């Protein structure tokens, strides 16, 4: 019937299909490979073979723990961070944050080169300049200050506590003649340093030898989350049998299921709790008398003497578990039980969260450890008396002497006016704003971003804006950097050379890859700045490189231990041993146990805010550590959350995942609710890390120490919508 040839039709169809096939196959060849990372070019080290793989030993710089790392470098790019098994700090482990360090190195927000501000402050308009120009500009500004005879108007915010750069800064401030070398820490860490010094005369802060403890009593949750001691505790948990863990805190992280017993402590009452522990130890004769006696004069004020009631009497009179219970909310039985366990399972240690402590609590923790015989003992609390970096003393010139004699801006009281550990960061913004006792003319921020991470809301912003000349050394475009006049970007820790000192070890930090951007290590900047300033300052820094300067500072240490540098080079880390003579004399009379006075407006603000640093917390912001921000246990990646107890949630009709407004007298914060079984009723757990979390936390100050009281802000909660 029909004459239309089927063959022809099929043929045509076949041809079409064939054409289509050719097309796709050709296209797919052209398309770029979706399975391969298209890596941008990086600066190549001399002599590095293309395609070469190597492992570089270095030290983590994301917190103070000083974990030794092995970094895998392929083709000039760092691709993986692993722990160094040789390290006594981390025993081959690395924490979640440390792993994300690579994202810091390759972060898109890194400042590419030194910059000078061209627009208004905060406008974020910059002009890139050369390093020579930048350092000359800074030196000119500093010369002006010195020429005007007010070197004390130079203020340095220093976020590092140890290491070569910190030592060089201290030397620079002394040579320049400014007492205003202020540590970036404002919370318990500073209080701890103060307590250590007041009670024992030792320098620095405490570290813990969890690895050899049989029982660990934690006050606060830092060691369970992000404090530098978390790594030590985690390593200790790998031991068999593992230590028994107590934790006294208003909240327990939901993940910390390995904590054997949680004492739900009322916020701000850790001093009372610890003294209650001390009471039981003394009352039931559980104190380690042997340790007390062998170290003669260990606790000189233990017994009554010269008509003065001794510590024993005072503890027994004032801090019985029953009387303490009303304050802390921890029953007398549980407290006694904990004290007996601490005494039974030796060696045991009381460790205090450095972000939560007040001066009294820090002192009380030292006291309890002394009673347990755990001070500077295996498995106990370790108080460092030696510092690795020691420079020969300076002869300040006339201008510097005058400056150093001036009263420090932060109103610290301490031994020498330039005593770094006594500096009170929280007093600084007010002092700058009121220009009392003197005006701040130049502000340097090294490893410091106070606008972002310090309480006090907008005062920091205003204070920084008031300083005529602000220099930031941050490698990132951050909140404080936005107000700077000059940006001198530092290397990230993976590009720096440094020697890191921690309680347990010295560790080598060396560049893993050549600097990715046109950055310069801050130590190098100090040396070049000193040289540009000339005179006595230049003479104080006779070294050409940071490495040279650091080795000079270490010379005393290397003399005592000649193999140190070789050890560092070959193993990345060198253990520090306590010498037997390092028994500590604790004089408890120099500290007051009075509980800090907390503001109270329980009617309008029924909750107490307990700020904490979650596992993803990183100083300077977790946005730079994207992996840490997206940890699966963070219920709201990249968002703000707030922890509330099951009871409170039920009472307020709030469910897990609801959006709420948290309001304090300092501000309002929007957050997602995380209902938790392990949060004390009446407490809101506030994870820090997001930009605006700190804004609702008040900068309440502990009268005794001049430092921050973290858990003192009251708040209320409202459901959104």
């Amino acid at each position, binding site marked *: 019937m029909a004459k239309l040839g089927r063959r022809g039709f099929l043929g045509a169809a076949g041809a079409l299909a064939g054409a289509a096939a050719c097309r796709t196959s050709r296209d797919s060849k052209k398309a770029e*490979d*979706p*399975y*391969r*990372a298209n890596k941008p070019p990086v600066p*190549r080290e*001399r*002599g*590095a*073979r*293309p*395609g*070469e*793989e190597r492992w570089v030993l270095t030290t983590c710089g994301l917190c103070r723990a000083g974990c030794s790392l092995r970094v895998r470098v392929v083709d000039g790019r760092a691709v993986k961070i692993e722990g160094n098994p040789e390290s006594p700090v981390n025993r081959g482990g690395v924490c979640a944050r440390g792993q994300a360090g690579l994202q810091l190195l390759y972060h898109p927000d890194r400042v590419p080169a030194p910059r000078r501000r061209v627009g208004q402050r905060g406008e974020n308009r910059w002009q890139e300049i050369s390093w020579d120009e930048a350092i000359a500009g800074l030196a000119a500004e500093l010369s002006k200050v010195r020429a005007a005879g007010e070197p004390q108007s130079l203020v340095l915010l220093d976020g590092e506590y140890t290491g070569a750069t910190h030592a060089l800064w201290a030397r620079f401030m002394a040579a320049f003649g400014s007492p205003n070398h202020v540590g970036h820490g404002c919370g318990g860490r500073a209080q701890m340093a103060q307590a250590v010094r007041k009670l024992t005369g030792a320098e620095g802060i405490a570290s813990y030898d969890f690895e050899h403890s049989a029982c660990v009593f934690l006050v606060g949750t830092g060691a369970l989350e992000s404090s530098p001691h978390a790594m030590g505790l985690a390593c200790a948990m790998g031991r068999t049998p593992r230590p028994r863990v107590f934790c006294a805190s208003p909240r327990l992280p939901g993940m910390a299921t390995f904590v054997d017993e949680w004492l739900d402590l009322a916020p701000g009452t850790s001093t009372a709790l610890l003294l209650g522990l001390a009471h039981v130890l003394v009352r039931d004769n559980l104190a380690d008398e042997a340790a007390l006696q062998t170290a003669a004069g260990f606790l000189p004020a233990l017994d009554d003497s010269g008509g003065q009631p001794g510590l024993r009497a005072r503890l027994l009179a004032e801090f019985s578990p029953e009387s303490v219970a009303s304050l802390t909310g921890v029953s007398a039985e549980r407290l006694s039980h904990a004290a007996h366990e601490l005494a039974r399972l030796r060696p045991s240690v009381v460790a205090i969260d450095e972000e939560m402590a007040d001066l009294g609590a820090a002192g009380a923790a030292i006291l309890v450890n002394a009673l347990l015989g755990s001070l500077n003992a295996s498995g106990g609390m370790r108080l460092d008396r030696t510092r690795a970096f020691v420079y020969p003393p300076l002869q300040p010139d006339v201008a510097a002497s005058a400056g150093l004699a001036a009263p420090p801006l932060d109103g610290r009281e301490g031994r020498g006016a330039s005593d770094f550990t006594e500096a009170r960061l929280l007093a600084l913004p007010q002092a700058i704003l009121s220009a009392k006792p003197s005006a701040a003319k130049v502000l340097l921020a090294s490893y410091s971003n106070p606008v972002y991470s310090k309480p006090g809301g907008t005062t920091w912003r205003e204070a920084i804006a008031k300083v005529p000349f602000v220099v930031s050394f941050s490698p990132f475009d951050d909140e404080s950097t936005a107000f700077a006049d000059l940006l001198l970007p530092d290397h990230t820790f993976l590009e720096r050379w440094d020697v890191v000192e921690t309680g347990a070890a010295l560790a080598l930090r060396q560049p893993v890859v050549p600097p990715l951007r046109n950055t310069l290590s801050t130590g190098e900047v100090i040396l070049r700045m000193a040289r540009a300033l000339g005179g006595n300052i230049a003479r104080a820094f006779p070294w050409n490189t940071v490495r040279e300067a650091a080795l000079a500072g270490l010379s005393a240490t290397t003399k005592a231990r000649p193999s140190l540098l070789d050890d560092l080079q070959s193993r990345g880390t060198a253990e520090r041993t306590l010498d037997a003579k390092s028994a500590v004399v604790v004089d408890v009379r120099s500290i007051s146990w009075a509980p800090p006075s907390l503001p109270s407006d329980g009617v309008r603000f029924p909750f107490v805010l307990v700020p904490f640093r979650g596992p993803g917390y990183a100083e300077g912001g977790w946005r730079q550590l994207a992996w840490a921000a997206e940890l699966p246990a963070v219920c709201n990646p990249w968002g703000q959350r707030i922890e509330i107890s099951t009871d409170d949630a039920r009472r307020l009709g709030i469910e897990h995942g609801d959006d709420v407004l948290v309001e304090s007298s300092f501000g309002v914060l929007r957050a997602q609710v995380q209902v938790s079984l392990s949060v004390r009723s009446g407490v809101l757990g506030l994870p820090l890390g997001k930009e605006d979390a700190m804004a609702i936390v008040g900068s309440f100050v502990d009268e005794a120490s001049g430092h921050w009281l973290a858990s003192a802000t009251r708040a209320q909660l409202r459901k959104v919508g």
Partner: protein
Amino acid sequence: MALSHQRHMQADMKCLTCHPGAEDQAEAQFPTVADCMDCHGKARGDHPDEPKVRAYAQQGAEIPWVRVDRLPGHVYFPHAAHVTLAKMKCEDCHQGILTATLPLSLPDLHQTMEDCMRCHRERNASNQCKTCHR
């Protein structure tokens, strides 16, 4: 730089001299200027490009070699296993390299997955997916 693989091979050199790693690592590497300078520190011929090597060395720069042969990103090819264990020759896969008088500008590998699988079958090597895919 008009490097001739042929000339180098005629000079009785081995591939591994300039491309170490092929015998004990997954990827073969490229020579550094220092490697080149071992032979070319002094002029060895009259090739117009030879002084360039010394120029690079003087500037302290590396020669920007370009890797033209790239397997798809999801393929894993350990040179060590093929060169050392299976005793294959480089030119078995890099077919044109012995006679190349200029650096390659186009990929020189033309094997398909079928070729790989056939050889693996014939030599009784594992043909499991994850042996070669990553």
